[in-house]
């Protein structure tokens, strides 16, 4: 059977709860597509090689590096970015509700410059859903893929545990 190779790929996926179809060059990363084509700049381009975690998004609920994922690999999948965390009608609107993890980060001052925060939030949501936010050591291990150069790690760890209900 011969495969049909193409330079323009049509990809249907769900982004922050909305179904859409996009046509991309196969080399387009999920990160570049989100930022440059869709205009969602929450996921950041820190290292662009999988070392820093600022581009972390959820694909079918699992956290992944957007810089190491091609859009074509997301066909039929559901992608969630930090913009989708609070729901489409949440953040930025008067009276909008933050996601509990966002609220916990605010409550615990879990950032300084904020550059890594979208990636930290997405990773934290997954970390809690996976059941890895059980204690300090487990959070530090399972959040190690997100670098914070302001070194807000103690506050981030506290926020993740609080959002997980483990801050007793």
């Amino acid at each position, binding site marked *: *059977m*011969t*495969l*049909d*190779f*193409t*330079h323009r*790929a049509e990809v249907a996926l769900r982004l922050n709860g909305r179904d859409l179809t996009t046509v991309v*060059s*196969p*080399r387009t*990363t999920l990160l570049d597509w989100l930022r440059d084509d869709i205009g969602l700049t929450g996921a950041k381009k820190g290292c*662009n*090689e*999988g070392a820093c*975690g600022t581009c*972390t998004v959820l694909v079918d609920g*699992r*956290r*992944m*590096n957007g*810089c*190491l*994922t*091609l859009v*074509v*690999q997301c*066909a039929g999948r559901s992608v969630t970015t930090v913009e989708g965390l609070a729901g489409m009608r949440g953040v930025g609107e008067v009276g909008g509700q933050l996601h509990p993890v966002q609220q916990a980060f605010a409550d615990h001052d879990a950032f300084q410059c904020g550059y890594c925060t979208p990636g930290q939030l997405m*990773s934290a949501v*997954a*970390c809690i859903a*996976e059941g*890895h936010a059980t204690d300090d050591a487990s959070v*530090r*291990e*399972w*959040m*190690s*893929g*997100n670098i914070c150069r302001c070194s807000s790690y103690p506050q981030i760890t506290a926020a993740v545990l609080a959002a997980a209900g483990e801050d007793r």
Partner: protein
Amino acid sequence: MRDFAYARAGTAESAAGALADPRTTVIAGGTELLNWFRLGIAAPDRVVDIGGLDELRGIAVDGGELRIGALATLNEIGEHPLVTRTAGALASACLQAASAQLRNRATIGGNVLQRTRCPYFRAEEPMPWPCSKRDPGSGCSSLAGRHERQAIFGWTQDCVAVQPSDPAVALAMLDAQADVLGPAGPRTIPMREFHLTQREAADVGQPMRETRLEPGELITGYRLPVSADGQAYVKVRERASYEYAIVSAAAAVRLDGARAGGARGQRIATARVALGSVAQRPWRLTAAEAGLPGAPLTREALIPVIERAMADAVPLPQNGFKVLMARNAAVRALLTAGGAR
């Protein structure tokens, strides 16, 4: 990143068929491949995506064998009860690799095909310095420059790099077999022979060859004998998490006799041990495995056996410390596997 043409494979056979064209590369998770594309380490005209092939997924025990599909991710393997129960060193190696988000993408098929972390090798084109892996015959800038992280076994003047995979060390220690599919049909490669040192590659006249995988072959999965041995994977690194190994060690130990006085009072019945990040392949300490049965499971008894098995190490001027560090990692892995600590 250079443009390429893309296709999704519907079957493993169709993917292997596409790979018969040498301008074609296979993508699964892509966590390593996309960085190769960015640096110019690979620049294929065509990329075939095997990520949708359910036939390459799954983890199961069948008879006395643990079967792991090539598309199983490192997180799936690391947290799967069948793996933690029957191949604990592999589960541990998977979870100590990379980060949580990388492990959700990285597959066990691609992981063993990752290439060295040597910073001279991982330069962006155009190459600012010689590297025989990037430009065959150009020489080794690491040998002439910094090489404290490089090989202590099997290196040549052409290249002193090490293979960085954690799971590969556990797979080699556990006598796993890789199932591969290629133009000549399916075949099996023992994981302890899968990678080649620079010396072994030179001896077969292909000095820059890194594995026994032939062009056009695709890893479809692994089979491991189910083991009740105590197991451990010890990874020594510069930070506690999300870092490549300086050295690592995987071990499996079965003890003899009754548990009088706990594991410390017991003798070793059988032991397997392999080092990681000391050569361009996982380094089984076969001489130690022959010498350990009958030895008590103590640090004092293990050290001389491991030292004798590492007597052929040839450290570089800057990495002599790795000999002692690897010895200690092997001893700790054996003690942990045997339950002594």
